[in-house]
């Protein structure tokens, strides 16, 4: 028994190494000089820690990193709460307001889950382009705000919402909207946080749509900016790794601080069908 326990830990450590190794490379490379990183031999850690990469990353005028970080921040900070709130609103209405339209509206929303998002980027681009959304912030943000699956989750949550609480609200003179904003919403903070954090990560890391819609450097997100550097002919590697470190740090922090919510969100969003 004891041997088995030790074996499990050994296996855990053996598997943990390849999972942590890329983070180490990211950090090591961002702290090296171009010369050292371009060398012929493997080095475990830079001889002298250089912050030149971080300076160069912001000094590159053809790929404006500061602007890209700002764009990504706007996209994620707007998209995460708005998309979650829109889904909560619809989920509540579909679960608790008994009108004849509830069933057809629910079907209309749920059917869109069958349309794979990335695979249909061309039709989406056509529509957003026709509305003048190319190279705009709204073009980056708005098409990503409507999450049918989150509606399904919120509807399920509000179906289990205690009727007594709703009745109490009614007695106090609240209408449907009042019950939603004063009672239902504050009591679904856990679900809001779980889906909101997941949505934040998703929007910060999203690549294909920002690449398609933000063609002007002024509308690049940080992912598009890094990709532009990565696929260009001459690369300042320490600068590129430095920008990668800068782009990962806020998310890693969110991840470590809100892991409880992320795990809960994954457990809910992962199992569908």
């Amino acid at each position, binding site marked *: 028994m004891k041997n088995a326990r030790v074996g499990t830990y050994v296996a855990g450590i053996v*598997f*943990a190494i*390849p*999972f942590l190794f*890329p*983070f180490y490379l990211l950090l090591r*490379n961002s702290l090296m000089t171009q010369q050292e990183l371009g060398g012929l*031999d*493997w080095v475990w850690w830079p001889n002298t820690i250089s912050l030149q990469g971080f300076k160069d990353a912001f000094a590159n005028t053809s790929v404006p990193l500061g602007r890209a970080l700002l764009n990504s921040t706007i996209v994620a900070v707007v998209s995460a709460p708005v998309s979650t709130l*829109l889904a909560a*609103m*619809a989920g509540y*209405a*579909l679960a608790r*307001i008994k*009108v004849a*339209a509830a069933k057809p509206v629910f079907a*209309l*929303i749920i059917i869109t889950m069958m349309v*794979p998002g990335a*695979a*249909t980027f*061309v*039709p989406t681009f*056509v*529509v957003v382009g026709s509305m003048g959304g190319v190279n705009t912030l709204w073009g980056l943000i*708005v*098409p990503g705000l*409507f999450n*049918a699956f989150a*509606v399904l989750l919120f509807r399920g949550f509000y179906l289990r919402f205690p009727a007594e609480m709703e009745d109490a609200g*009614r007695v106090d*003179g609240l*209408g*449907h*909207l009042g019950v*939603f904003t004063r009672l239902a919403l504050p009591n679904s903070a856990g679900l809001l946080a779980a889906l909101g954090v997941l949505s934040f990560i998703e929007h*910060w*890391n999203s*690549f*294909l749509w920002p*690449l*398609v819609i933000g063609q002007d450097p002024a509308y690049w997100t940080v*992912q598009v900016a*890094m*990709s532009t550097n*990565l696929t260009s*002919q001459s690369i300042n590697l320490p600068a590129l*790794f430095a920008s990668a470190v800068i*782009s*990962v740090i806020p*998310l890693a922090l969110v*991840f470590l601080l809100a*892991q409880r919510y992320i*795990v809960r969100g994954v*457990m809910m969003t*992962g*199992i*569908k*069908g």
Partner: protein
Amino acid sequence: MSIRTASSGEQTAPRSPQQAVGARRRRVDWPAWRAFILLTAPIVAGLVIFKYVAMGWGLLLSFSEARGTISLGNWVGVDNYRQLFNDPRFQDALTMIVLFTLVIVPITFGISLGLAVLVNRLRRGRAFFRTTFFIPAAVSYVVASLVWKMSLFSGVPASAANSLAGLFGQEPTAWIATVDPPLYWIVIITVRLWLQVGLYMILFLAAIQNIPAELYEAARVDGARSEWKLFRHITFPLLRNTSVAVTMLLIIAAFQAFDEFYNLLSTGLAGAPGPDGRPPLVYLYDVAMGQQDYGLGSAGAFVVTLLIVAFTLAQSRLTGFGKED
């Protein structure tokens, strides 16, 4: 404003014949309708515009010649679809993505399930290991591609893979800059594994922790001694719903692979793998954004969508999803 409660209307006695007819036909609850419309209108409008109108327009475009334009009218029947299937690059892309799906789905499934079992067995330090396997999910495909392409699997002798191989006397290998041998598969498979394994591990872990401990006790009493037997006869069968869901999610994600292929393999002039490493979405990106052929690009979008639907349906048939519960 909507202080009236939903049911108050039903209690008032009808005062005139018209109202009596109305009440019999169920009185319209205007405050409820107003609230319903206010709460659902934003998402309904968004989905109608960005899903329904987009798909409808795209479907019409796929039957039009639409080069450099998104306006309809120049109908060409199924020419776009014919051109698509006659293009060897698209054929290669389809072969590639089917192969990729067949490789990545079982490997991801196996490793995430294995890690879930492993983490579940750890008492102390479980949080540490769970976080370690899960935290790559916070990293973008672009950043991971950067690390894989420029540091882990770069062709220079100082890259991690080549340094490791050097310890065993191997010459440096150009991992992604060659198709012969197709070592770039190792690169594209491992990068996706690193990014997504933790997510599915969390799903499996949650399902494993829901299995009642008594079942294991009972099996031990019945003589199931080895851990393997317990896993085969208890854990795995009880994970069936999660397994089916995970497989479905993995297939949908694999078919839409774009980010890592675009960032790892499309170096343009450097002449990296080219058609060999070009999945359908990268092909469609070139067609729609490069050549601005939105008719062909829309046709491709529908082909890929149908493929995803077909594969997930086949998968649910094979696993008999929905028969139980």
